[in-house]
């Protein structure tokens, strides 16, 4: 409070690599986000990068097809991380999705720090799938920004897989614009990193747009996953449904920050946000901050949040039926975490994610 933070060598080098200007001075005056920054209170990025990633990073972006164009693109002006990504990238590949298309993108961050920005357009009436996969190698730090724009009546299923990345640091910030009657269905499956943050901002401006945000996470020892989602309802008759479920094993840390902001013009908004977390063992941590900020009166908004352990009664019941305790626990945890994934419409994608979840559960237990 009031004290100007000392920049780390990494932050100073990062600032020096930027041209003089607003972005550079923002970084110079405040450094990277840290615990004292409200939006990052449980995810200390500065702390995670205290041991600086050495040198320029090697980010491998593996895309299923070529970009339609390379543009210059800025991100949300008030968010430091995507601004940095835009400022430090050479250009922004733009993908215009075709009806029925599935675009797959894999991000593999090698050692060092890397920044990347990309954009995806879903033109009016188009129905498409976007699949992303993220992994950071030990000592790697990737800061990735994405812009997704849905035209009128467009429909996008977005699947994000974040692989367990011990000793890697990953920040993915996505800005999504929904036009009238657009339909966005986003599901994430994350396993954490030394610090991983999947941050999604949705501008719900079009009348009658539908948004479904959800996902599952499972964080093992030493891993941290932060799922932050900010939804801005500015148009009327919009709907948002969020269901996030996660589990933390001993030494794992889950963070959920959700915010639904309803402007006065966004009358008849229907917004529901739900987060549920399982603490699997002593030493696990889950922090949650489900926020509502409502300025319109004719709305129905609700959020629920529950944290706890596997239900003892259910365990008892299953053991009575002859299951061993670990087996019963695994089944209950599996059924708990599977719910958000089961809502994925595409059968192949759904099965693939469920299989990954099963494998991860096997490794944790």
């Amino acid at each position, binding site marked *: 409070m*009031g004290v100007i933070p000392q920049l780390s060598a990494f932050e100073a080098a990062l600032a020096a690599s930027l041209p003089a200007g607003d972005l550079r001075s923002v970084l110079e005056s405040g450094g990277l986000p840290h615990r004292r920054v409200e939006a990052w209170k449980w995810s200390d990025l500065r702390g995670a990068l205290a041991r600086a990633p050495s040198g320029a990073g090697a980010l491998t972006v593996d895309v299923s097809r070529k970009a339609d164009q390379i543009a210059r693109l800025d991100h949300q002006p008030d968010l430091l991380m995507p601004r940095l990504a835009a400022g430090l990238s050479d250009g922004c590949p733009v993908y215009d999705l075709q009806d029925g298309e599935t675009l797959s993108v894999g991000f593999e961050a090698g050692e060092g720090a890397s920044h990347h920005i990309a954009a995806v357009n879903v033109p009016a009436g188009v129905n498409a799938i976007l699949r992303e996969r993220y992994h950071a190698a030990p000592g790697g730090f990737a800061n990735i920004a994405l812009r997704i724009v849905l035209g009128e009546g467009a429909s996008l299923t977005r699947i994000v897989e974040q692989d367990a990345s011990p000793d890697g640091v990953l920040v993915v910030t996505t800005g999504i614009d929904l036009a009238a009657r657009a339909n966005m269905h986003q599901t994430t499956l994350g396993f954490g990193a030394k610090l991983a943050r999947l941050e999604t901002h949705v501008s719900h401006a079009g009348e009658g747009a539908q948004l479904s945000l959800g996902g599952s996470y499972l964080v093992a020892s030493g891993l941290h996953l932060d799922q932050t989602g900010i939804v801005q309802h500015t148009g009327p008759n919009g709907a948002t449904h969020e269901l996030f479920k996660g589990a933390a094993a001993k030494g794992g840390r889950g963070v959920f920050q959700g915010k639904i902001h309803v402007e006065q013009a966004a009358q008849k908004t229907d917004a529901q946000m739900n987060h549920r*977390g399982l603490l699997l063992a002593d030493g696990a*941590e889950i922090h949650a901050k489900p926020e509502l900020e*409502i300025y319109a009166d004719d709305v129905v*908004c*609700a*959020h629920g*949040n529950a944290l*706890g352990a596997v239900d003892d009664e259910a365990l008892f019941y299953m053991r009575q039926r002859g299951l061993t305790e670990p087996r019963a626990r695994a089944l209950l945890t599996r059924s708990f975490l599977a719910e958000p994934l089961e809502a994925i419409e595409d059968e192949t994608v759904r099965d693939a994610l469920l299989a990954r979840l099963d494998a991860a559960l096997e490794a944790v237990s």
Partner: protein
Amino acid sequence: MPAVKETIEDVRRLEADKYKYGFTTEIEQEFAPKGLSEDTVRFISEKKGEPQWMLDWRLDAYRRWVEMTEPTWANVHHPKIDYQDAYYYAAPKNASKYKSLDEVPAELLETYKKLGIPLREAEVLLGVEGAEDRTAAEAREAPRVAVDAVFDSVSVATTFKKELEKAGVIFMPISEALQQYPDLVRQYLGSVVPVTDNYFATLNSAVFSDGSFVYVPPGVRCPMELSTYFRMNAQGTGQFERTLIIADKGAYVSYLEGCTAPMRDENQLHAAVVELVALDDAQIKYSTVQNWWPGDAEGKGGVYNFVTKRADCRGKNSKVSWTQVETGSAITWKYPSCVLRGDNSQGEFYSIAVTNGRQQADTGTKMIHLGRNTKSRIIAKGISAGRSDQTYRGLVSVHAKAEGARNFTQCDSLLIGDQCGAHTVPYIEAKTPKAILEHEATTSKLSDDQLFYARSRGLDEETAVALLVNGFCREVLQELPMEFAVEAQALLKVSLEGSVG
């Protein structure tokens, strides 16, 4: 509900007289020099004849405060406060005893009348000779409430003192307790809200003028409800009460606090600190009705209410329950909290907050679970009307050792009109798998169906709204002691004046 008819009359009265309690009594006051400096702190301490350690404590707080910056994280907006442009101490000059009510200055009596304090009680409060014995005799039959009135900064008088003494309960202004029980005060003061806890608590530590001190000895159930009426008077005087309540092992006490403040144009700063300490098996129930001047329809004037209230459930099986009805103040910044340190201790928070006009309220609670099998329950009802803004901000934190901890939180917001805002900002932190934390929140408007139903039964719109709002708040109203429940219902009605249509 017979109370409904009163709504319309109450509201009409308000039309003419806008704020019933908005009046200023003109009596001579003794001021500390305007502004805040070490000298102000010394002046206050000297006025009260405090021991050296107390002065040192205050000075330490002041020096720390100077280094601190005002917090800006709350969802409230106001012009910057000029801390040098206020008086930090005002005492009624004439606090001596009167021979009869005739001798009491008429303005003072009028104040009590408008506050709705019965004449007999006023007699005692004002220190009229013989009044205490008469009142005590009457009180034997009636339900009893002991009143420690804070008339501006100095507690003018205390009723039922003898009755309480008999039970061994100490209930007196904290300034008096500092003289009579310095060790007890020294042991507990600042042990729940440390000097440097936050900007406003530190300010309070430096300049607190007076407040209540309660000590309930082991095993004693306090024989009556204790209550304090805080009143701000004197133009431009900030109020800095300091309340300290200690329930020793197995003790029980219920404390009521109700506030009204005069109408005025300048913003008034109010930064109180309330500390509760519950030892083994002790129980404290703390109820508040707050209806300070909220400012006019354009938000001009009104009280800035920046309060730090915290309870320390220090002993095993202890329990603290906060109940609040917040309808007043231009700006409220208040989070009555419980530190659940003792095993099996319990914390409760029941709140109704109503904002109308241009009011802003950022209020909630913190439940810090440290001990095993600790339980907490939060029920918060927020009603926003007019052009007001309201935020529920709460923290439930379960530490690694708090096995078997349990929390249930429910925050419901009601929006009346499309110019207001309702926000929910809960923080939930869990560090043990052996705890269960549940949180629910909803935001909605008054149901059209219910309104239609009530109106089709012949109720006019305003009455129907009052009825539904009372229903919405029922779970909290039920928690209030009888004396307050009635006042609270009346307040809800008056507070929503002009919000319909």
